């Protein structure tokens, strides 16, 4: 028996509650934020040149489709230098944040349903240059459509999402695979990441972009899987950087650096 819609909704996660953890604040009150900046300024007086203190890090939002565990992702962003990580259910007031992450848990149609009312805001955010990283399903959603669902994708990238070839390989593609980096292209996410590093995949579908030039790295699993796509400040990763050990941590820090640069640029405007 597959849960009906009512049961499904009952199992959905209350936003900013359980998953985000009662012990961490999600939307930081301004007063607290100011205090932290003051604290950090005080610290800066003593230790100049340190750029990883909390208040100097970027503020990141994770868009929550309501379908699963994003605590690990939130923790990974915090561990690697985000000043705050908020779990959001709407893309309103996105300019409060320096970066947005579309996480990689759930199914295509429900995830699209949860974000499609905000598509225009999403496109505006891309145009504004806010760094955005789609992970796994979050990357697949950027395309026109997916064999996993019947709804249209966000149609940011031309191309479709197809099922992995079940006859050739075990599906889901679950485990550690090598990243084959296209060294002729310059990826900001992959700065300092060696060719062939191991990253952790969990997926049953893969993107087939029409514009091959956005593919910065791929992995081989029965077919060649676009593993990292990048266009300006928009990034998609098919694997899970938050679960990919040291190599994944480097990529998360690279993404946070992009977010921080965007923060500085915006402050200067």
């Amino acid at each position: 028996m597959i849960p009906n819609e009512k049961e499904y909704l009952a199992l959905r996660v209350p936003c900013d509650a359980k998953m985000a953890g009662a012990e961490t604040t999600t939307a930081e009150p301004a007063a607290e934020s100011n205090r932290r900046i003051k604290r950090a300024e005080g610290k800066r007086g003593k230790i100049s040149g340190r750029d990883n203190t909390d208040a100097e890090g970027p503020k990141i939002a994770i868009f929550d489709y309501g379908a699963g565990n994003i605590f690990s992702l939130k923790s990974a962003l915090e561990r690697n230098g985000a000043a705050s990580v908020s779990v959001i259910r709407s893309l309103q007031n996105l300019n409060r944040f320096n970066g947005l992450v579309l996480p990689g848990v759930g199914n295509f149609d429900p995830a699209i349903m949860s974000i499609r009312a905000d598509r225009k805001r999403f496109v505006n955010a891309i145009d504004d240059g806010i760094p955005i990283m789609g992970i796994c399903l979050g990357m697949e959603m950027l395309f026109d459509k997916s064999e996993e669902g019947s709804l249209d994708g966000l149609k940011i990238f031309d191309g479709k999402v197809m099922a992995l070839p079940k006859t050739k390989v075990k599906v889901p593609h679950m485990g550690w695979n090598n990243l084959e980096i296209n060294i002729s292209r310059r990826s900001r996410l992959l700065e300092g990441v060696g060719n062939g590093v191991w990253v952790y995949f969990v997926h049953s579908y893969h993107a087939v972009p029409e514009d091959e030039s956005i593919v910065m790295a791929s992995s081989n699993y029965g077919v060649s899987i676009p593993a990292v796509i990048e266009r300006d400040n928009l990034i998609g990763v098919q694997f899970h950087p938050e679960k990919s050990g040291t190599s994944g941590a480097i990529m998360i820090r690279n993404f946070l650096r992009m977010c921080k640069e965007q923060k500085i640029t915006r402050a200067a405007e």
Partner: protein
Amino acid sequence: MPLAKRIIPCLDVDAGRVVKGVHFAKVKDAGDPVELAKRYSQQGADELVFLDITASQQKRDTMKGVVREVARVIDIPFTVGGGIKKLEDARDILLSGADKVSINTAAVKDPQLITQLMSIFGKQCVVVAIDAKRNYQVNKDKKRKQNIFKADRREYWFEVKIYGGMEGTGIDAIEWSKRVESLGAGEILLTSIDADGTENGYDIELVDAICKSVNIPVIASGGCGSPSHMFQVFKDTDVDAALAASIFHYDKSTVDKVKKYLMENGIKVRIE
């Protein structure tokens, strides 16, 4: 390109502390789960499995706290199993930060739970743990299919056991593995009760039979006493991962040493 063979330390947790069962009975204290998780992750473990063996229902909530702390500190995937009876239990564990839940007895009692979990959280979150043991009472009347094996002129089949290996089900493990795959399991954690705790090596016969029956990843468990046992199971079967506990807990070996040994022997493993 084949994936790296995964090395998975397993931590049995009782009321917030790591212990290891020998033949599912006697246990010794081996430490704090969060500390061990960090240590294994730094040593290059590819994944971790936590089995909650807490008997009392009240103390069970401590597991959620453990899961949360583990999720905060490590950057590799981890699975939590033990005592998950219903959808809400699984949901609590996943939302506390676990990447996958492993269900065993509950899956046998209510196979639809596998499908429900799959449809809400995705296949990749659903691990079905199968505890199997040789049963020498071969029933020829074929009401239920039994896949018969033969050794030393004795016939047997592999029976699925539940409640920590205490209770038989009459279900054939090979048939069950196919069924859980069709119901939506994303992975099978296969424990041989005959081999578990012996430290004489994995149950190659059982592991091979299950791997040949399904097209989802299989984790071999039970019997690992040395790195050579891991080499053996990877060489002789198509298994995706090897799980072990005691060889890591008591510093008999470390994850990095095991992986170096496997790599030198031609097994593809992840070394950063």
